[in-house]
């Protein structure tokens, strides 16, 4: 049959000569290689004390953003929950009352916003779906825990720290 490409290379398999059949030279070669590695720089990152730098497009824990005036951006439209392939996001919407204008940017806001971190696959579709730029996966690694219920993160863990007020 005609070869599809001319990249095929037939390797010659010679029977081993006496020196090769002794095995020992090859073993010593290997041992010298491993011995050299003893003095090489160690690759270990001592994790809890030091952390590796994340790449630019790293997706970690979610955070719910605030705008320049410290108001929550989320308007509880539910697009993130809709786009979520793992169905990890649930929310309950509520209407903004008089006097809460400093807290929420839109007339509607999420009273309850929960992400189940065991379901989340960190695909970033919620981030893409959000029309208000309210959710970003820019946090750290989600830490381990003991109970399943502790992996359902509410607004207390997700919402960004409020801005420091100017007058302070």
């Amino acid at each position, binding site marked *: 049959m005609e070869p599809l490409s001319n990249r095929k290379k037939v390797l010659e398999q010679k029977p081993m000569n006496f020196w090769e059949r002794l095995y020992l030279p090859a073993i010593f070669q*290997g041992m010298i290689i491993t011995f050299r590695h*003893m003095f090489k720089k*160690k690759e270990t990152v001592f994790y809890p004390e030091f952390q590796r730098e994340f790449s630019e497009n790293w997706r970690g824990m979610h955070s719910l953003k605030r705008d320049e005036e410290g108001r929550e951006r989320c308007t509880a439209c539910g697009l993130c929950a809709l786009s979520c392939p793992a169905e990890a996001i649930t929310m309950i919407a509520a209407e903004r009352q008089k006097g809460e204008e400093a807290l929420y940017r839109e007339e509607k806001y999420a009273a309850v916003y929960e992400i189940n971190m065991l379901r989340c696959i960190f695909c970033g579709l919620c981030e893409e779906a959000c029309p208000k730029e309210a959710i970003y996966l820019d946090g750290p690694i989600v830490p381990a825990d003991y109970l399943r219920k502790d992996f359902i993160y509410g607004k207390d863990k997700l919402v960004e720290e409020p801005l420091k007020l100017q007058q302070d």
Partner: protein
Amino acid sequence: MELAFIIEKFALILVIFVISLTIAAYSTLAERKIAGFLQDRVGPNRAGPGGMFQPLADGLKMFFKEEIIPTESSTALFILGPSLALFTSFLGSAVIPWGQDVEIAGRMVSLQITDINVGMLYIFGVVSLGVYGIMIGGWASNNKFSLMGAVRAASQNISYEIPMGLSIIALLMSTNTLSMKEIAEQQHGINWNIFYQPLGFLIFLVCSFAETNRTPFDLPECETELVGGYHTEYSGFKMGAYMFAEYLNMFLASAVMSTLYFGGYNYPGMDWVNEMAGSVIGPFIGMGVLILKIFAFIFLFMWVRWTVPRFRYDQLMNLGWKILIPLAIANIVITGIVITIFEKL
């Protein structure tokens, strides 16, 4: 038998027992550390400074783990297996000469627990008993993987005992004695047996890797194909006993190789050191040298383990029967010819 003799022997036994326990325990740490270094890692470093207390933590973990005895196993044999393995690995160090005689309070104290005139045969006997621990444990587990591991261990040990014994015969021809003490004494200074028996040493070295079930001959416990080999069903302290026995065997094999081929407690310039240090400190320096040699061998064991992959079963048997045994016999013949020529000259 006088009281001083009994006290002296008991003290020596206690000291050597403690030393071999400590070395075996710290071998587990050394193994993991060396494995780390050879693979550009750092190894365990959390328990204590630089991981110093890791063996302690491991030991405690072994003690507190649940011990499972499979219902289908024969309980008595299941317990006997690891006990026997541990027991036999302790016995061998009785005939190792740890140093020259020490003069304490006008008495010559020998730094050897017992100098039996068939010391080398004794070690062979004890080492081959060690396989019973593995055999019994693997059989009693009533598990096919354990049984296969045990069968492999038995055939491997029997196959490699033959070239080992044959390489010893060549050594015997040049030393004319079986007593470990006399063999050690003959290698005074740098007059080590390795220079007379390089091939014999190589065969002995390969066989000791096989006898201690270390990589590349760790077929009895290969994790990848036999789950865990003969100790698949073992847990808790019994598992620990098997592991400990392996490290003790490694220590014993290193001690035997240092004594038989690398001069034991002898080192170049030892007469001068003994004169300077006196007849009490001097022998202990020799003991330190022997322990250094043992450490070097233990390092070699670990270094090979993290370099060479495991042999296939038929390759193992080929190496044992078709290469090592003919080589060992050739070694005997060559030794015989050379000795005869030198006697005639």
